[in-house]
């Protein structure tokens, strides 16, 4: 196994190199950071040239990339073009709040998906299955911004109008002395992410369990006289969970990237907003820093998931 992991890690380095190169090119051609200074009366050509020089933008693109890569290999992702702060500092400022939002959401997503998926599969074609299926389709088909604004309108604006306790709309989220306020701010964005994700995941798990329940070894287990509970949890669910674990495993790296729409609507100061706000201005160091982080996480967690398979399914051998 260690040989396999070493080989995968070596491949990962090569993949990351390609990812950084492609991202660097794409970000450079998506927006010109100097466009911020276009049409600014009072700025002279010399002023613009001095700023471009201070940002290193007067150097050829390959030189810029090699320099960036060299510093990145030494743990320095450079400074933001606009806030002039180290990119690592900016990421460190946003990552904890993104993780609070995304990990909380992911835990709820896993738990609720498991419950709904299992209930829906075991009670196939029952009233409860139909209800879960209907709500899943509704959740799956609605755009996230619609759910977000709908929840905000009801639980913030209307509840306030009805003189009921209401939830905050967003921002002013982080105050280390006021954790209950942070929890209140979490309710709406987490609900939003959970509604969207649970809809798909529970359907996926339901199909997976139903497929396993129809296999020969489950019938054999029934014939042996195992209880339905033992059969489901010890035999069926274990096999049905494999593809589910794959999906969740691949989700984990994206937890670091945040949820752009949800973070923007609920003014959550996370990684998604950091990426988008700086990408709009053509701030390459920040954009490439975030892409390097999420790209590395994707590569790393893909390896983890592959290794995890061997624990869940002893039939799988890595070589």
């Amino acid at each position, binding site marked *: 196994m260690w040989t396999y992991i070493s080989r995968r890690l070596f491949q990962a380095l090569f993949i990351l190199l390609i990812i950084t190169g492609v991202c660097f090119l794409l970000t450079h051609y998506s927006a010109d950071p100097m466009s911020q200074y276009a049409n600014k009366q009072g700025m002279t050509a010399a002023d613009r040239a001095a700023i471009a020089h201070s940002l290193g933008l007067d150097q050829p693109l390959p030189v810029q990339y090699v320099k960036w890569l060299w510093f990145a290999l030494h743990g320095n992702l450079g400074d933001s073009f*606009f806030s002039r702060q180290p990119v690592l*500092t900016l990421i460190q*400022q946003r990552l904890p709040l993104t993780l609070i939002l995304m990990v909380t959401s992911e835990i709820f997503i896993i738990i609720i998906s498991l419950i709904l998926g299992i209930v829906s599969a075991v009670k196939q074609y029952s009233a409860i299955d139909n209800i879960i299926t209907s709500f899943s389709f509704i959740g799956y088909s609605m755009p996230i911004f619609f759910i977000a604004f709908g929840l905000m309108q009801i639980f913030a604006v209307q509840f306030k109008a009805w003189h009921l306790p209401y939830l905050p709309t*967003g921002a002013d989220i*982080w105050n280390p002395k006021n954790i209950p306020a942070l929890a209140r701010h979490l309710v709406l964005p987490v609900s939003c992410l959970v509604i969207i994700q649970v809809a798909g995941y529970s359907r996926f798990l339901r199909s997976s369990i139903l497929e396993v329940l129809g296999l020969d070894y489950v019938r054999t287990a029934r014939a042996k006289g195992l209880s339905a509970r033992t059969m489901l949890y010890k035999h069926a669910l274990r096999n049905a969970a494999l593809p589910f674990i794959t999906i969740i495993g691949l989700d*984990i790296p994206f937890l670091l990237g945040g949820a752009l729409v949800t973070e923007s609507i609920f003014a959550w100061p996370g990684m998604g907003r950091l990426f988008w706000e700086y990408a709009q201005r053509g701030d390459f160091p920040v954009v490439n820093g975030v892409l390097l982080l999420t790209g590395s996480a994707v590569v790393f967690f893909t390896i983890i998931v592959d290794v995890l398979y061997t624990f*869940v399914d002893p039939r799988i051998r890595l070589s």
Partner: protein
Amino acid sequence: MKRSMFFLVSLIALTSLLLAACGPAATTVAPATVVPPPPPPTQAATGCSPAVGTAAIPFPTGGKTVTVAFSQEPDLLSGLFSSMSFAQWITQGILVGLATWDANNNFIPELAVEVPTALNGGVSADGLTITWHLKPCLYWSDGQPLTSADVKFTWQVEVDPGNAVYSRAGYDQITSVDTPDDNTVVLHFKSLYPGWQTLFTSGPNNQGSIQPMHLLQGKTNLEKEPFTHWPTISSGPFVITDWIAGDHLVMLPNPNYWKGHPKLDQILIKFVPDPETAKAALKTGDVDFVPDFAESDLADLPALEPAIHTRVDAGPEFEHYLFNMGVKGTGVGQSDYEGFCPFKNVDVRKAIILGIDRQTIVDTLLFGKTTVPASLWPNSYWYNTSLTPYPYDPEQAKTLLENAGYTVDTKTGYRHGMCNGVDTKLSFNFETTTKQLRKDMAVAVQGMLAKIGVEFKPIHTPSGTFFGNYASGADMATGNFDMAGYTTGFYPDPYTDGFLCSTVVSNQNQGGDNNYHICDPALDALFAAVNASADPATRKIAVDKVQQYMFDNALVIPIYARANVMSYTDRMILPPTSVISGMMGDMFDWDVK
């Protein structure tokens, strides 16, 4: 199964803990490291003393606070280094200049006793020497005296090549700064600089806020200095005491501000990127004031009355369409690309202006909340009020085009005619950004111009590409376009560089500002007259002539004066706001009922 699920959940939790541990304990933006200042001079030594202590006045229980929503977080809180409006608005409350502009656009003193004039001896007869007198007993919020040495230091920061300042324009025309005493600053210019009012003062695009010498002296690359990102001391009414990245920023009163305690005890600025969220926050009272709604938000903001009021101030910036007048060549005033040939004919340009119903655009897309300007610099001292915008007159437009030799092709419905010996169809591209309002306007204009036989073909490009520089190959910068549309900014002084032969953008002059590609010696001469005097009254006459010439020759199409759209809850008292200084310029006078 249990084992794998437990493993998975543990993995997520561990990962989050590990990564969270990589971050700081809280997400507070790092403030500048402040070296404890030496004790402030005693009253006996200077005749003055700081008003109250040296720390920001804390928010008292039951104090008055206003919560503001900004759609963007500022990058650097220094006008010297940031071009971002949100940064400049906050900076105007913490690092002020010698003078500013009031709600009536009057140039008024801030840290200075009075604004220099020829009458009070502040402006020398030849205009080459400007003398400012600071108010007595000025202090930074940390208790250190604010003196003429700080003004001189600010000039040194501006001209130091080690600092990547936003603009050196004007500062590089100063040869020396004398400080005969703590309250007197004498600026010596090497040549007449008519826009001297933009130096060391606070306005749009000219953040000349005074920098604290006692904190920054001896440092270079100040754009990377923590103080530049988050100034920890203040010369304005408020001090920033807390800033959580991406979340909020807290401003408390500066105990040493020369005007005294502002009417509020705290301003809390939240960063709310989505305008719909900002509207919801206004409704719930989570925020009191949103200063930067887009004009398109006017569709539903009035419906929020009476709980939420909306104010629309038409400002000096304006959306305009411009003709590419370029002449291909490599000489001074020539371009890489030839402009659209028919645009060289003034009657064609006039016909296009007459064929666009700008008032209907304002009435429908902007809900009638702003105006159609006739010329440059609307709603400012420099605007030529004698001009009346061209009316919407499609019949006259058709006549002008017929007389210019452009007749309608009955097959296509569009006109064509001979231009420089070539049969040319009146069909051209129009380039602008992807902003929805611009898309809506372009569709409207397309329909209007089709009625007079002109084909108008919009191309929408993301602003990061549209406004790219020459090296990036952007069409606007290289001059590879027929017609374009965007908002032209406002500098609190008539800005002349954008129309001169010497600034036409080309391969030989890649940093040029003249995107109109106009090279007209008569216009150059008129602009030269604007810059021939330091006296505002004399210059106003010259500026009026420039506008008259541009109007007569239909050189640009002003579409509408950009509106500052701000909404605030009924509990907030928002005094009249200067359209020059910006939406946050009067925060000293903000109050709540």
